[in-house]
């Protein structure tokens, strides 16, 4: 049966992705839920929750709020919180509750702006899609809304898009920056150790590096608006296991998996990339596959003739019949464990 998970638990959802991008932006983020979705974000998908403070709250909706569509109550609560916490903007993140009752998030955005006097972005996530969709939406809306002015380009400044714990398994940008420091003087990882001011000043970047598919749409927007060129890639931050002349299947977010492919192809390997998350067609090779169901991965693993599978440990559960080597390749959006190695 489609959409029945028998081996793994659900992957990081879109609302978690949206919150991940917004987490360090300095705004007030409200998850439009009853509490459970915010609990999943703060208690699981956001490893920075107990390290770095962020004004991330649950709307605390109750059944009558939903049934009666009390948007005005939500706006009132949002307004109250802007009196308690200084913030340059507010954001509303959708969940299944507003999706079921068809909340007009655009109207909510306008109502909030009118009431609080602060810019508001409402993100139409609904908890049914995956994290990269929510990240893409959040990056795009942030840059679209706040990156307004063209500033002089600073030579040696690189802007990185896609740096979230869900994509890279890190809670800060130290390792990423270290890996890029030989070529770039000044690296800014949007949303990780950087806030809204850097988003506003994105046009100062000499180039952009997109390290996960979720950042691509925003990069294209920035390119269109400011002519900032962008590259797609992933700087290696970990030592990789030595594999030579094998047929390999790599399951991860596409751009990291592609970087691994490049490395292993140089070791004589034949590499296929697969992902449950976004697969951008122009960065796919002929045999690459976008996986949508558990059974598809099982079929691919068992009948694909692979010697080695590099994937998050969580997938091992469903690949018990695989006769080759399984190497754990952490992906926070899958198994909820930090670090990529």
């Amino acid at each position, binding site marked *: 049966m489609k959409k029945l998970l028998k081996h793994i638990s*659900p992957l990081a959802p879109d609302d978690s992705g949206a919150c991940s991008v917004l987490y360090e932006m300095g705004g007030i983020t409200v998850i439009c839920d009853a509490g*459970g979705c915010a609990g999943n974000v703060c208690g699981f998908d956001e490893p920075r929750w107990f390290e770095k403070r962020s004004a991330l709250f649950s709307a605390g909706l109750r059944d009558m709020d*939903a049934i009666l569509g009390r948007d005005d109550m939500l706006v009132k609560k949002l307004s109250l919180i802007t009196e308690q916490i200084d913030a340059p903007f507010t954001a509303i993140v959708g969940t299944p509750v507003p999706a079921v009752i068809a909340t007009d998030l655009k109207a909510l955005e306008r109502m909030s702006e009118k009431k609080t006097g602060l810019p508001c972005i409402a993100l139409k996530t609904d908890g049914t899609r995956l994290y990269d969709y929510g990240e893409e939406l959040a990056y795009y809306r942030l840059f679209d809304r706040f990156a307004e002015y063209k500033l002089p380009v600073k030579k040696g400044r690189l802007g990185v898009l896609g740096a979230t714990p869900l994509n890279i398994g890190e809670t800060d940008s130290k390792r990423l920056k270290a890996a890029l420091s030989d070529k770039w003087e000044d690296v800014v990882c949007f949303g990780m150790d950087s806030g809204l001011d850097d988003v506003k000043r994105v046009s100062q970047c000499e180039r952009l590096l997109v390290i996960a598919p979720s950042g691509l749409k925003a990069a294209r927007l920035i390119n269109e608006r400011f002519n900032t060129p962008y590259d797609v890639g992933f700087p290696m931050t970990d030592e990789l296991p030595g594999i030579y002349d094998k047929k390999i299947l790599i399951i991860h977010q596409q751009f990291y998996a592609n970087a691994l492919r490049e490395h292993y192809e140089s070791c004589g390997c034949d590499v296929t990339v697969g992902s449950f998350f976004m697969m951008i067609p122009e960065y796919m090779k002929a045999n690459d596959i976008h996986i949508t169901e558990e059974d598809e991965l099982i079929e691919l693993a068992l009948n694909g003739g692979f010697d080695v599978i590099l994937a998050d440990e969580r997938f091992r559960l469903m690949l018990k019949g695989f006769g080759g080597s399984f190497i754990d390749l952490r992906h926070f959006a899958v198994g909820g464990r930090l670090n990529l190695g």
Partner: protein
Amino acid sequence: MTEAFFVTAAELAYRGFDDLPRELDSSKHMIYSSPATLDFNSPGAKGFGVKRAGLVIPGSVMLLIAPGCCGRNTALLSDLGYDERFFYLMLDDTDIVTGRYVNKIPKACEELLAELDYTPSVIMLCCTCVDALLGTDMERVCRACYDKTGVKAAPAYMYALTREKRLPPMGLVRKSIYSLLEPQKRISNECSILGFFSALEDNNEIYALLQSAGIRKIHEIGRCETFEEYKEISRANFSIVLNSEARAAAQDMQERLGIPFIELTRMYRLDKIHNQYRLLGEAIGAAFDDSVYFESAKAVIESFKEKHGEVVFAVGESLNADSFELALALCEYGFKVREIYGTVGERNFVFVKKLAEISPETRVYSNLSPTMMNYQPDPCIQAAIGADACYYHKGIVGVEFNSEAQPFGYRGIELLFSQLDKALGERGEAYV
């Protein structure tokens, strides 16, 4: 930036329950995901949320019918060995609007059964806010699943939207997990303890006291290892309810199975514990002699006080106690409680009023208030009790006191003070 909001016990008592400050009324503000909030909203490796609670029936499996976001944190339960008991029917955006997935649930049950090499005792169907809003008749869905598979199904309502209703999700799930019990001949010297998903701590005096009254078998769901043992619960002559969230389950058992119940409250004041046992004895026609336990607990408190002096505490709510009752107990024993992080309700407001008389300056904070993200620890506080209090006071001695083995009665007092004694001893911080 507003400082963390608090109100003193005196002011709170003066205002009364009907005039709570806005920051203490969670319906009037956004919710901050403090550790205590997460305990309720996202219970993971520690504690029981609806998902884990639904699986306390031995041999059960769970089908979570929800958008991906609702089941995401279930991965936390992997370490506890739940991996092979969870299945997920993922809903997409069309599903949650049309409700078309409801017809697929029996088929999903059939497929998950094919995956198992045993027949589960029950399939718990865990549903979420989506079904709360769509008004899905889960009883009917459960019957359809049974018709399709021949395996019983029961609902586990993870309705966060209804957490402040008369029967909140944690009450509903308790009712569900006892709903599979069937009437059978009750045995006069057996009883059951309801309230927690795990068992009482092994050395609890209630076992000995009940045995002294002639009770030979005490059923607890947390001690059931097989479905057969679970089914024996309905042999109980009476139930003892130790947590009010199990009241609906007990009432249901009274109506369906004819098992009456007696409700006790977990408290930390010696005289109240003694009084409860006296009333329990009267209700079952026995005179309990609890003097040994009373004296032992009293001695533990006195010894602790002698050793550590008038310790100043912060008391949270992520712990096996009512924050306000525990704070009141500590103050009555001669300690100081500088701060409480808790949820004021109608039931525990009585403790607030008493606390206001003996410790009017105690500050009451709400873990749910957004202002708590600006909380700054008070340096006067010497020890923290509760996982949330420990989080706010990382630099000082603390005990989380939220183990799965449930403390109760005199034994609860002994456990608390022995843990505090150990923690203070390890830091070498005696405050005399």
